[in-house]
């Protein structure tokens, strides 16, 4: 007598349904609200031809050899107080194995203000290095050979100015611009959407970005002209799908603007780079990174008609999620960061910044910064995850989730298109509202304990030993003020005025502004002076707040 074998999936289904379910912290969706199945099987595997690393659409990675050819760049973002202090930290980190530099600027510098401006009071050197003129930039990179390292500069509205300063420092070191390598964040759209470090209105802001992309395509070809960012959008409270969609939409807006300028997509596309968040919901993040590569490749090839493979390949930097860190029991942040970094690596990031455990409270101490760097080295050399390419490829769960992220992103692209594009959507407050809603929803989930955050709404401790945090010496502000005034006093004032006048005229016209800014920078015009001159022509922007 034949016994019909039962379908094992059915068997599992039955057994699963009659099994008990734990009550604590079991969630049926990702942190972004994507519904999760308890189990993924071959039935969930999407219908598609098998994908391979280094092959369009690059879901499994842009290099055929993954990390076997080259590890990701360990690029720790840092900078504080003065150029001198920061130069010391860079030397320390390079000696400890960091492979690329990443510059954090202070708020006045990010906002285009000199350290002695009245609105800079109390803000100099607090969250990054104060750079007022080329003189500070020279100090920052003193003893650091620009021809041998790559540098990422996180700055947006005044990005063109800082890039010109970097080029000028290279000149002084005898390194031609064509040999300079690095990345400029320069992503003004996400400022309007999330980080709010905008100065000029959208149109002139975009003009400056396109100017820098156009200039670099010819003069600084190894430079990544823009780091199209999702990190800030995510940190402002968006979901993973929103981060993915809004970032790629911004990317497309930049491509459109460059094409409108008359550039051919293959001239600049390979130098566009991206910057994503690595949040704590592990698998969702991995799926997000993979979906990002696939979507971008498709759009570049199908919609923009890019013909060169390197134009299709999405390259990205990742930073572990600042918002996932807690002030309570901060040592836990080391574990959180490690897990988030692992997600970034399994997602195939090209470079990575890991947060230090004390960053909820202040800029990192040396010790905390070193632990953060060591975490990456642990991943690279002890865990073995870098030895197999895209190790999670083929997982029923990961492939299904990757598809889902892609679907959600495409839905958003349609909505943005309906509004008329990224800039109209910004002016209509579309992104800002999505983000504010998601942020509020998440907060409510935490407060209603529908979502657990260890140390915050569960597993709390009452008596915590305070950890030592970094304090910025307030004297540094007054020293920087003296320094910038000194620079102003010692330079050729006529040269500065002429350069600024020529720049102002060009700004009112359609010339590429980069050469004019470079001249002003070489003459030791301060950042504030350059920005003010541009504000005279471009005006400033006040956002319509969407709460």
């Amino acid at each position, binding site marked *: 007598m034949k016994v019909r074998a039962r379908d094992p999936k059915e068997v599992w289904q039955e057994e699963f349904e009659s099994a008990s379910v734990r009550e604590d912290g079991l969630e049926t969706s990702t942190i972004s609200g994507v519904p999760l199945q308890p189990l993924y099987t071959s039935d969930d595997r999407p219908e598609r031809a098998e994908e391979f690393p280094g092959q369009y659409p690059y879901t499994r990675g842009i290099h055929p050899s993954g990390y076997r050819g080259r590890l990701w760049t360990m690029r720790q973002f840092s900078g504080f107080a003065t150029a001198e202090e920061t130069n010391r930290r860079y030397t320390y980190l390079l000696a400890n194995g960091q492979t690329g530099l990443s510059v954090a600027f202070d708020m006045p510098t990010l906002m285009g203000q000199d350290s002695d401006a009245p609105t*800079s009071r109390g803000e100099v050197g607090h969250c990054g290095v104060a750079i007022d003129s080329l003189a500070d930039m020279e100090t920052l990179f003193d003893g650091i050979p620009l021809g041998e390292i790559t540098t990422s500069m996180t700055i947006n509205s005044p990005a063109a100015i800082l890039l010109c300063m970097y080029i000028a420092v290279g000149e002084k070191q005898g390194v031609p611009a064509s040999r300079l390598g690095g990345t400029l964040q320069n992503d003004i759209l996400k400022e309007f959407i999330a980080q709010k470090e905008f100065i000029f209105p959208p149109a002139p802001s975009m003009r400056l970005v396109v100017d820098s992309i156009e200039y670099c395509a010819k003069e600084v070809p190894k430079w990544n002209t823009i780091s199209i960012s999702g990190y800030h959008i995510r940190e402002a409270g968006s979901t993973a799908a929103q981060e993915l969609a809004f970032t790629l939409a911004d990317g497309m807006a930049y491509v459109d603007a460059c094409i409108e300028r008359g550039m051919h997509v293959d001239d600049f596309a390979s130098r566009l780079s991206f910057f994503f968040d690595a949040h704590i919901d592990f698998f969702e993040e991995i799926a997000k990174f993979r979906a990002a590569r696939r979507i971008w490749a498709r759009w570049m090839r199908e919609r923009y008609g890019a013909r060169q493979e390197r134009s299709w390949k999405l390259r990205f930097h990742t930073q572990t999620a600042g918002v996932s860190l807690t002030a309570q029991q901060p040592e836990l942040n080391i574990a959180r960061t490690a897990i988030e970094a692992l997600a970034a690596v399994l997602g195939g990031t090209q470079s990575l910044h890991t947060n230090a455990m004390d960053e909820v409270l202040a800029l990192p101490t040396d010790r905390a910064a070193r632990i953060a760097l060591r975490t990456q080295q642990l991943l690279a050399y002890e865990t073995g995850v870098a030895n197999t390419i895209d190790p999670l490829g083929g997982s029923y769960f990961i492939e299904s989730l990757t598809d889902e992220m892609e679907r959600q992103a495409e839905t958003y692209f349609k909505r943005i298109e309906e509004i008329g594009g990224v800039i109209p959507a910004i002016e209509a407050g579309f992104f800002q509202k999505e983000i504010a809603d998601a942020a509020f929803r998440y907060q409510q989930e935490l407060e209603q304990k529908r979502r657990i955050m260890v140390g915050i709404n569960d597993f709390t401790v009452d008596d915590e030993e305070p950890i030592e945090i970094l304090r910025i010496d307030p004297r540094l502000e007054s020293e920087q003020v003296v320094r910038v005034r000194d620079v102003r006093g010692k330079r050729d004032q006529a040269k500065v005025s002429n350069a600024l006048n020529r720049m102002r005229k060009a700004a009112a016209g359609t010339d590429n502004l980069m050469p004019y800014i470079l001249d002003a920078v070489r003459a030791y015009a301060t950042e504030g002076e350059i920005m003010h001159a541009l504000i005279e022509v471009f005006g400033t922007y006040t956002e319509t707040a969407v709460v």
Partner: protein
Amino acid sequence: MPTATKPIRIVVAKVGLDGHDRGVKVVARALRDAGYEVIYTGLRQTPEMVVDAALQEDAQVIGLSIHSGAHMTLFPAVVDELKRRQATDIVVFGGGIIPDDDIAALKKRGVAEIFTPGTPLQEIVDWLRQRFPERAAT
């Protein structure tokens, strides 16, 4: 005629250059849901602007959010400006990236309370309710 209940008015702002407004917006919503009239004055406010707005709006409370590390300059500046405008009855509270040691110092300088990252919104609402028991219904 009987007086309508008086909602407490709170001016909520970000002082200084930093633009991270996720926290301040979430708090603004929570305060609104708790029945307060929240006047959101947005980003890049100077201490003078915030105090002036609080006076024009006849607000009882000022809430500030600072993530840039400049809190030791900016909070006292607001407190001092309130003194200058003879409005020290207005209560100042805040949140952001502010280490514990600084909280004690700020309170000495006249800030009523600081809520650090991770504070449940309900805690802020409860604190306000305690501070202003005569506020509006619900």
